[in-house]
């Protein structure tokens, strides 16, 4: 349809485009610019070129942060997709009971990260938490997962999976609605068992849904901050220092705007790359299976 005046569309899009540009697109450019300076906001800024990037890359710290974030994201995505799909298949039945269970699982997605993080900090506490009690009962002594550099990050991933599975489950449930019963029944008549039906009928049809869940879960878990800030504050020994938390620490605790901006730029580039790669892989898979 043609607009009534040429300025109509721009008037309607104006506020939205202005706000989005100022608060989402422009900041990336500003971050790239600020990353070339050393500035603590209290004294005048100093041009340092790529020194911030060099400092971050020194001793391999930047690489470690990137790997940690990637590792965490992979764990969370794998966990939520597997559990989400499993729960969707399990609970895709009528009745109040199944509706109640679905609601319980999804409710974790709805509450605040603050609530979830504080709750699990309590549960995982070595001294007085449920997990500590369990390990003592099992004869393993007092175990403090959040205080062990090897287990802290996986522990955070488990908490994230607990919170985010509900989302994956709901999306898969919607995807399952799109699988025609007739196809499943035809396959059953052909003698296919439940597993075969799943593999050859359901899974291919779910591929786009799975791709969607994988990409959005990946992007979400790449941005993890709340869970780190509340549960481990980046420790122990930097084991849980994920990208966004590192940016936060650089600017609010070290007051180093340049380093924080440099980290932001790297973070954004990495996010784009990973999301893009993920999409391409899934699309190729979906294409190949047809």
């Amino acid at each position: 349809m043609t607009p009534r005046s040429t300025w109509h569309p721009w008037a309607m899009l104006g506020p939205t485009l202005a706000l989005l540009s100022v608060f989402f697109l422009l900041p990336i450019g500003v971050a790239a610019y600020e990353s070339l300076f050393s500035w603590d906001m209290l004294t005048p800024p100093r041009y340092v070129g790529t020194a911030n990037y060099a400092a971050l890359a020194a001793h391999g710290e930047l690489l470690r942060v990137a790997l940690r974030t990637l590792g965490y994201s992979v764990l969370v995505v794998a966990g939520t997709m597997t559990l989400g799909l499993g729960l969707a298949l399990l609970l895709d039945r009528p009745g109040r009971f199944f509706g109640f269970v679905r609601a319980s699982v999804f409710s974790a997605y709805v509450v605040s990260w603050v609530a979830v993080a504080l709750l699990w900090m309590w549960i995982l506490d070595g001294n007085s938490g449920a997990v500590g009690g369990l390990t003592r009962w099992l004869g393993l002594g007092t175990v403090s997962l959040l205080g062990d550099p090897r287990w802290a990050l996986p522990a955070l991933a488990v908490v994230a999976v607990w919170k985010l599975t509900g989302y994956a489950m709901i999306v898969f449930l919607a995807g399952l609605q799109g699988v025609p019963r007739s196809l499943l029944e035809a396959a059953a008549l052909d003698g296919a068992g439940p597993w075969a039906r799943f593999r050859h009928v359901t899974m291919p049809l779910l591929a786009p849904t799975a791709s969607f869940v994988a990409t959005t879960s990946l992007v979400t878990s790449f941005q993890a901050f709340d869970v780190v800030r509340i549960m481990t504050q980046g420790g122990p020994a930097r084991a849980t220092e994920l990208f966004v938390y590192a940016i936060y620490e650089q600017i609010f605790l070290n007051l180093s705007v340049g380093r924080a901006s440099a980290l932001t730029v790297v973070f954004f580039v990495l996010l784009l790359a990973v999301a893009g790669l993920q999409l391409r892989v899934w699309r190729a898979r979906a294409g190949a299976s047809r």
Partner: protein
Amino acid sequence: MRESKSRHAVILALACVAAVAWLLPYAWMVATSFKTLPEIVAHPGAPLPEHVDTGAYREVFATLPVARYMGITAFMAGTIAFAQIALALPAGYALAKLRFVGRGFAFGTVLACLLVPAQATFVPVFLLFAKAHVVNTMTALVLPFAASALGTFLVRQALVSVPDEMIEAARMDGAGELTIVYRVLAPMLKPTLVSLFLVSFVFHYNDYFWPLVMTTDDHVRTLPLGVALLREQGTGVRWHIVMAGNVVLSLPVLALFAMAQKHLVRAVSARS
């Protein structure tokens, strides 16, 4: 395809396990909130409190101005959700229904913003707000989210399927463009808009990161920040108080969820 009895039993059992896995932590949280500190230190593993003690809740309400924080948080979340809908409607309409030069570019801009998280923008935005002396005000909390790339995208998708004839008829009746958007099309999109509003409201109500970064004191502190502060006490951890704070924080959202479950679920599944 009828399931055998044993298979059904297994499924029921697994469903129960799932329910327990997701409900038990909450139950633990509520139980802890009714305990006392000596009880927690002495018997940390006890599932139920010896007596129901509301001391933790009294301490939470004494330490935090709960009503005030909740009011601020609800106002902020409501304003954001409302603004997002108000802006997404005309923008989505323009992208869906109007043909104009630069439409592809505008749509591309909106899509591009879907990939940019708040965590990537907070440093420059904070600096911008600092220069404008707007840090620690409601503006800093609301303005960056007043436009929603996702909302615009969803409204556009929903409007694409609306027949052009309806809009042309309204035009011939003499209706202005904005009237068409807000009085003709919006009611047709009610389910989508309600879901969008709820999801946005819940997301921003729960938001910890942005208020943490954009506020410096009590002035516009939100409830998640306040409850998180309960943890940082400096002498000894008081789990019962932290859990009581958690309950206070989560109850409104869970109540909203119970009442509006359908809409929230629809919003999540509609995106696929």
